[in-house]
C-alpha cells in the first residue's frame, strides 16, 4: 500500500466513524398512520405471553388468528409483555407504546391524569356486554367526570391463602380456616409449632407489596386508607382498628415467633415458601393458586382460599386495557372490537373453557377464562354454571372465598396507590423488623407522609 493510499484509507476511516456515530440518530423515528398497507386497520397490541411460556403463547396466538379470521378488516400486531412501570414513560416518550396496552388497576388514574390514554366514552354505547360488567370495575378507568379511558378485563379480590396439609398436621380443620385476625394468630402459632423451618404466617414487606398487603388488611377490618375531604384526599388509616391489626401482627412476629426471622421479602419470596409447603398462611388473590402450582411446585389439593379475616371489606385488584391517546377513531373502534371479543365475551367462554381443559389448565377459579368481572345477573349466573360444570380443580377448597365474595364490600385502591404503598411499606417493615416498634409513631409518620403526598398533588 502506498503512503497516499494509506492516507486515503485513514480519511475514509475518519469519515466512516463519523457516519456511524450519526447514523443511529437518523434512524430512530418511525411513522404509523394506523393502516396495514392492505386497507386493514393496523392495531399494535401487547399482552402476548413470553416465548418461554409456550402453552399460553400458543393459546394467545390461536385467539389472535381466530379474531382476525372473523374480523378481516383488522390487522392485529401482537407485542410480548404486559405492564412494566419502569419503562412505560420512556415508551410513551419514544412513541413505542402500543395502540392497546395492558394495565393493572393501580395504573389508570395516573395515566388518565397525564393524558396518555384515549377517552373512549363516546364509543362505548355499542359495545356488547360492557353494561353487564360490575360498575365499580369500570370506575377504575374513569376520571372525576365519569369519562372512560379503558376496559376492565379481570378482577381479583384478596383472601387468605392457606396450606391444607399443614393445617391438618397442626391439628387444625382445613375446612374451617380462620375467620378473624385473632384466629389467624392462633392458627399461625399452631402451624409454626410443627418446626422444620415451617412458618405459620408470611408477609411481603418490600417493593410496595408491604403497603399493598397492609391496605388489604386495613380494608378487611372495615377501615379506609384514604378518604375524601371535599375536593382533596386525606390519609384515613391511623385508627384503633389498624393499631389492633398491627399489634396482632407484631405479636405473631415477636411473641409467638410464628413468622420466621427473614422479613425483608417480596411477595415472590413468600410464594416460593408457600409453594414449597413451608408456610401456613398468606394474603393473596385467587390468581396466586395457578402461579403456585405452575411455578413453585404447589398442588391444588393442598391449597385453600378463604375470605379475608374479619371480612368487613376486601381490596379489589385487577387488570384491563387502555387505548393509546394517539390512536385514530378507526383504531379505537377496532381496539374496542378486539377487547370485547377477547375479554368481555360470554359467548366465547364455553369454547375457551373446553380449550383450557384440553390443555390441562385450571378451570373453576375466579380468573380467566372465567374472570370475576360480571355484575349480578344472567351473565354472572351462566358463567357460574359453566364453572360448576367444567371445574377440574377442587373448587370446594376455595368455596368459602367464592361464597363470601358477594357479601364482602370490595374497595378499590387509594389514589396514588403505588406511592401510598411505598409509605405503608415502612409501617409493615417497622412492625416486622423492630421488636419494640411503636405502632402509633409508625402510623403517625406514615399519615403525615401520605397527607404530604396528597397535598402536593
Amino acid at each position, binding site marked *: 500500500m502506498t503512503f497516499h493510499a494509506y492516507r486515503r484509507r485513514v480519511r475514509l476511516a475518519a469519515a466512516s466513524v463519523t457516519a456511524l*456515530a450519526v447514523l443511529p440518530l437518523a434512524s430512530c423515528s418511525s411513522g404509523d398512520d394506523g393502516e396495514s398497507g392492505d386497507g386493514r386497520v393496523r392495531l399494535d397490541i401487547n399482552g402476548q405471553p413470553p416465548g418461554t411460556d409456550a402453552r399460553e403463547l400458543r393459546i394467545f396466538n390461536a385467539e389472535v388468528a381466530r379474531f382476525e379470521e372473523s374480523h378481516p378488516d383488522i390487522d392485529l400486531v401482537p407485542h410480548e409483555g404486559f405492564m412494566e412501570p419502569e419503562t412505560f*414513560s420512556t415508551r410513551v416518550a419514544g412513541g413505542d407504546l402500543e395502540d392497546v396496552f395492558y394495565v393493572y388497576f393501580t395504573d389508570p388514574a395516573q395515566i388518565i391524569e*397525564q393524558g396518555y390514554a384515549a377517552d373512549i366514552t363516546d364509543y362505548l354505547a355499542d359495545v356488547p356486554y360492557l353494561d353487564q360488567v360490575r360498575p365499580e370495575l369500570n370506575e377504575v378507568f374513569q376520571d372525576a367526570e365519569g369519562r372512560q379511558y379503558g376496559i376492565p378485563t379481570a378482577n381479583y379480590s384478596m383472601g387468605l391463602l392457606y396450606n391444607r396439609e399443614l393445617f391438618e398436621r397442626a391439628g387444625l380443620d382445613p375446612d374451617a380456616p380462620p375467620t378473624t385476625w385473632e384466629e389467624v394468630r392462633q392458627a399461625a402459632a399452631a402451624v409454626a409449632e410443627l418446626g422444620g423451618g415451617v412458618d405459620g404466617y408470611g408477609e411481603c414487606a418490600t417493593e410496595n407489596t408491604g403497603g399493598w398487603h397492609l391496605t388489604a388488611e386495613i380494608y378487611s377490618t372495615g377501615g379506609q386508607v384514604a378518604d375524601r375531604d371535599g375536593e382533596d384526599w386525606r390519609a384515613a388509616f391511623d385508627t384503633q382498628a389498624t393499631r389492633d391489626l398491627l399489634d396482632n401482627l407484631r405479636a405473631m412476629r415477636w411473641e409467638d415467633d410464628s413468622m420466621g426471622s427473614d422479613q425483608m421479602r417480596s411477595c415472590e419470596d413468600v410464594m416460593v415458601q408457600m409453594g414449597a409447603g413451608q408456610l401456613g398462611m398468606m394474603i393473596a388473590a385467587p390468581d396466586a393458586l395457578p402461579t403456585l402450582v405452575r411455578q413453585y411446585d404447589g398442588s391444588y389439593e393442598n391449597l385453600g382460599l378463604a375470605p379475608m379475616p374479619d371480612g368487613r371489606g376486601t381490596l379489589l385488584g385487577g387488570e384491563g386495557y387502555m387505548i393509546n391517546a394517539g390512536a385514530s377513531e378507526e383504531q379505537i373502534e377496532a381496539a374496542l372490537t378486539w377487547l370485547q371479543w377477547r375479554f368481555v365475551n360470554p359467548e366465547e367462554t364455553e369454547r375457551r373453557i373446553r380449550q383450557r381443559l384440553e390443555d390441562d389448565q385450571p378451570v373453576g377459579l375466579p380468573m380467566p377464562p372465567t374472570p370475576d368481572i360480571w355484575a349480578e345477573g344472567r351473565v354472572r349466573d351462566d358463567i357460574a354454571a359453566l364453572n360448576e360444570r367444567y371445574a377440574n380443580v377442587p373448587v370446594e377448597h376455595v368455596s368459602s372465598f367464592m361464597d363470601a365474595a358477594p357479601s364482602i364490600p370490595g374497595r378499590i385502591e387509594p389514589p396514588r396507590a403505588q406511592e401510598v404503598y*411505598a409509605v405503608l411499606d415502612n409501617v409493615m417493615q417497622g412492625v416486622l*423488623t423492630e421488636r419494640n416498634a411503636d405502632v402509633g409513631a409508625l402510623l403517625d409518620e406514615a399519615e*403525615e407522609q401520605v397527607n*404530604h403526598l396528597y397535598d402536593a398533588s
Partner: protein
Amino acid sequence: MAASATRRRRRAENVTAYGFLCAALVVFAVFAWYPVLRNVTLSFQEVNFVRGSSWVGLDNFRKVLDDPLFATAWRNSALFTLYALVIGFGVPFATAVLLNEFRHARAYFRVLVYLPVMLPPVVVALMWRWFYQPEGGLINELLSAAHLPTSQWTNSASTSLISLVIVSTWANMGTATLIYLAALQTIPGELYESAELDGANLWRRLWHVTVPQTRFVILMLLLLQVIATMQVFTEPFVMTGGGPKDSTVTVMLLIYRYAFVTNDFGAASAMSLLLLLVLGVFSAAYLRLTRSRQI
C-alpha cells in the same frame, strides 16, 4: 512549490484529524452533554410526553425539598459515603500492604482479591441477600459456629446501611487494592532500609514512608470513591428496596422512584441536578488535584 505541498499535506492531515474528532464530539454531544442539558431543562418543567411539557419555574425543586424523604435520602447517602470511606479505604489499603509483603503466590492473591469486581453487581447483591438471611444465611451460620453473636443485618434499620457498605466494599475493593499495590511497588526500597536503620518499627515505617509516598494515589482514590458512593443504587435497590423503614433510601434510589414509580421526571431531574452540583464540587477537587500533579 515545496511549501505549498507541505501546506496541502498538513491540511489533509488536519481533515483526517477533524474527522476523528467529529465522531468523538458527536458521541459525547449525544450521549453525555445533551442528556445533562436536557436534565437541566426538565428540572424546570412539568414533563408530559403527550401534551407537551410546560415551564414551572422552581416548583420541582420545592417539591423535592418538601419531600419528607429528601433529608433521609441525603443523610443515608452521606452516611453510606462516610462508612464506605472508612471501610472502603482501610480494607483495600491494608490488603495492598499485606499483598506487597508476600513473597510467594502474589499473583494468585491478586486474582483472588480482584475476582469480585468481575461479578455482575446484581449477582453480588442477590448473593449477599442470601448471606445476610438471619436464619440459615451464611454469615450468621459462620458466626454461630464460632459462638459469636449474630445480627439481623439487612432485616434491621440499625444495621441495614452498614450491611450494604460491607457488600459494596467487598464487590469493589479489588480495583482500589491493585492501584494501591501498584503505588506501593513504586516506593524505593532504600527508603524502608533507611527507616529501619533509624530504628523505625512497622507502624512508623507505614506512617512516615508508605503513606507520604502514596499520598497522591490515596487522595485521588478517596475523591473518586466519594463521587461513586454518593451515587449508590444497586445495593439498596436489589437488597432492601430502601428499607427497613427508609434506612437505606439513597439519593439515587429516590431519583429512580420519582422517575419510574411516580413518573415525575421533573422532580427526578431536579433531584439529579442537586446531586450533580454536590458531586461537581468533588469533581472539581479531583481535577484540581490531578492538574497540580501534572504541573
